[in-house]
């Protein structure tokens, strides 16, 4: 029986969507299977409702994956300055063990986590791609920045990335398709503070339109990207790659379709997939190429769960590498009130960024860089509820008056740092807990080691210093991932490399020994970068992987 599709893509997030689009451009017929639902910007997002502040990104049936956590680490008093706290609540993690208050933040749906991301569109720092050979930690990428650069250009063009003229470490063959967004007043204030400390603060490359582009309107600076963009100007992949893939007529997206099996026989060839739809009916689809793009938690889960006589440890796991080298979001955020009005409820989240410490050797006595950014809207300080519950003390008439006086004064600075692999951070299958289809749940093990704590300390101290230099006196809240596992970016659990002994896929992102199974998500990253948001790199990698596969015939 001939297959109806040339390729099956599992997962419609950043990587799967980019891969699907590329395949359609090359004339392939593609089936995209997405475990989560569609989201309709006209109906599902609530930024135009009076109670918009009580409407975070919507949860729909099937839109949140289930997973578990291993035991988190004991906290060490020497890092008490890295504990999360709030000026009224006190410490946000009680006791002496790391908590999981927030956990792995993601969306299952057509668009994946780009649906709720704020839309930073970062290229990886070329200096962050040779950590092992140049700094003796982590792993090297099996290719360099020059190899990825043309694919970055293509992804940026499709999305309509708005960015600055200055390139810094990230050389470019072509300018950004759209000019950078103007900085908000709040970000200009933080830029002045950063400048007083000798730090440069530049417009952040953003997957949000600064001008009308590709039939989509420009951003109107409502600040609510993470609640879902009703205007469609944010470059979430449902509005960019998927939309164009569907337009080609060669792509079909099946939502609420959960893949159970990667079908294979006695040879290392994937023949197709078995999946279950939202009504519980099982289906089989076959294709000559299968692309796994379920993210750095679900991709290793699916590989580990697909055991057979041929691969008793799971697909791609002959050397026990699947699930290892888990890298997470190492982050810090400091929040304060400025004495002067900042109109900080408006603008584009993360509109400004500081790359000064982004290289892996940029922080003294620490390996691995970090970046700093304007985080006021990123931390959701954009409405009266946020001020009333987080920034203003007490209650009563005084609380009301103080809220009116302080609204729009909030400033927040965030930092995200390199996450290096360590033996205690990995993904495995939970020994007993299973999903509704009987598949074991993924279990996340995470450990923040001493080097990470030193990096975090630098990040925290710099955030505090910039706020102080910007004119803020007392901090109101700080949150970090030393004492509270919270990850939006996840990487490394099926990393690419040369040898199957220390990697899962090769430089073309084929699983070692399985030529027709490609990985196109953050699981393939050998290193996380110095705080860059990964979606653009995931997309560039996916475009490259598809091209390599098709050109190889």
């Amino acid at each position, binding site marked *: 029986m001939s297959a109806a599709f040339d390729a099956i893509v599992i997962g419609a997030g950043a990587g799967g969507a980019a891969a699907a689009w590329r395949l359609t451009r090359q004339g392939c017929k593609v089936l995209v299977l997405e475990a989560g639902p569609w989201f309709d910007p006209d109906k599902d997002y609530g*930024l*135009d409702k*009076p*109670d*918009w*502040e*009580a409407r*975070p*990104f919507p949860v729909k049936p099937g839109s949140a994956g289930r997973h578990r956590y291993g035991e988190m680490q004991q906290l060490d008093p020497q890092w008490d300055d890295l504990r999360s706290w709030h000026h*009224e*609540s006190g*410490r*946000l*993690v*009680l*006791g002496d063990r790391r908590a999981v*208050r927030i956990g792995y*933040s993601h969306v299952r749906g057509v668009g994946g*986590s780009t649906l709720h*991301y*704020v839309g930073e569109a970062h290229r990886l720092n070329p200096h962050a791609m040779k950590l092992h050979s140049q700094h003796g930690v982590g792993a090297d990428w099996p290719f360099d920045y020059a190899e990825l650069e043309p694919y970055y250009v293509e992804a940026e063009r499709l999305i309509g990335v708005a960015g600055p003229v200055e390139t810094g470490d990230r050389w470019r063959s072509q300018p950004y398709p759209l000019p950078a967004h103007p900085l908000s*007043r709040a970000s200009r204030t933080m830029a002045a503070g950063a400048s007083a400390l000798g730090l440069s603060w530049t417009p952040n490359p953003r997957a949000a339109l600064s001008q009308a582009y590709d039939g989509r309107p420009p*951003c*109107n*600076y*409502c*600040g*609510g990207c*993470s*609640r879902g963009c*009703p*205007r469609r100007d944010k470059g979430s992949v449902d509005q960019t790659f998927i939309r164009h893939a569907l337009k080609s007529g060669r792509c079909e997206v099946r939502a609420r379709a959960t893949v159970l099996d990667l079908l294979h026989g006695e040879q290392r060839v994937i023949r197709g997939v078995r999946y279950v739809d939202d009504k519980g009916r099982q289906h089989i689809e076959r294709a000559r190429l299968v692309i796994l793009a379920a993210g750095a938690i679900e991709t290793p889960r699916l590989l580990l769960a697909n055991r057979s006589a041929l691969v008793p440890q799971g697909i791609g796991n002959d050397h026990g590498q699947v699930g290892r080298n888990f890298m997470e979001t190492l*982050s810090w955020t400091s929040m304060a009130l400025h004495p002067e009005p900042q*109109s900080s409820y*408006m*603008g584009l989240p993360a509109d400004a960024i500081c790359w000064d410490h982004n290289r892996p050797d940029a922080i003294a006595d620490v390996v691995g860089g970090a970046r700093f*950014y304007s985080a006021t809207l990123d931390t959701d300080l*954009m*409405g*009266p509820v946020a001020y*009333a*519950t*987080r920034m203003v003390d*007490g*209650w*009563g*008439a005084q*609380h*009301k*008056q103080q*809220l*009116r006086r302080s*609204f*729009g004064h909030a400033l927040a600075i*965030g930092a*995200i740092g390199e996450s290096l692999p360590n033996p205690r951070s990995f993904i495995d299958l939970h020994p007993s807990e299973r999903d509704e289809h009987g598949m074991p749940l993924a279990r996340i093990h995470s450990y923040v080691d001493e080097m990470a704590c030193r990096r975090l300390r630098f990040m925290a101290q710099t955030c505090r210093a910039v706020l102080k230099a910007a004119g803020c006196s007392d901090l109101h*809240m700080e949150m970090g991932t030393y004492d509270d596992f919270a990850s*939006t*970016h996840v990487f490394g659990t099926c990393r690419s490399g040369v040898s199957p002994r220390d990697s899962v896929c090769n430089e073309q992102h084929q699983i070692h020994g399985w030529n027709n199974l490609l990985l196109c998500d953050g699981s393939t990253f050998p290193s996380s970068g110095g705080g860059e*948001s990964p979606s653009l790199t995931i997309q560039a990698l996916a475009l490259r992987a598809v091209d390599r596969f098709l050109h190889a015939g």
Partner: protein
Amino acid sequence: MSVRTFSTWPSLSSLSPLPQLRRRWFLGALLTGGLLGWAARADAKAAVQRTRLKPVSQGRADMPPALRAFIDHLIPADELTPAASALRVPDHIWQQAQDDADLRRLIEVVCAWMDRYGEGFAVLQPDEREALVKWMSTAPWESPQRRFFHLVRDRAFTLYYTQPAAWKGLPIQRPPQPIGHVLD
């Protein structure tokens, strides 16, 4: 980055908002109250007995009177905006509690505790209410009073400030979309 939860609710060993009531929290409250003179009638031992956990009452019960008074103490009317009860905030919270057994039990237990003093929380003098609320706001997290204070405060502010009638005096008078903002 993308959206996260920025809750000020700390991690707790028990996920239930309602811990076992412990005698020392009542003693602390009584000490505070005693300074104001209205707690003298209370007896710590009896208080513990009276608030010993019982199953949640079945069916839709009437809202405890202390709940409305407590929320209006947090969000009173002023020259620009109405009190929380005028925007039906206590009713909404009580309605939410009908589908959340833990929340309902927490409200019932702590409101019963608040009503123990004088003729009930709602008819206490403002400075007496203030003393009690202040004590609850700083009680240890293990106590039901602190959890009640935090949970109800968060919910009350959220339900209140998601109503346009509460936005007078603020620089925003409409939701962020569809108009957005012009950067200044």
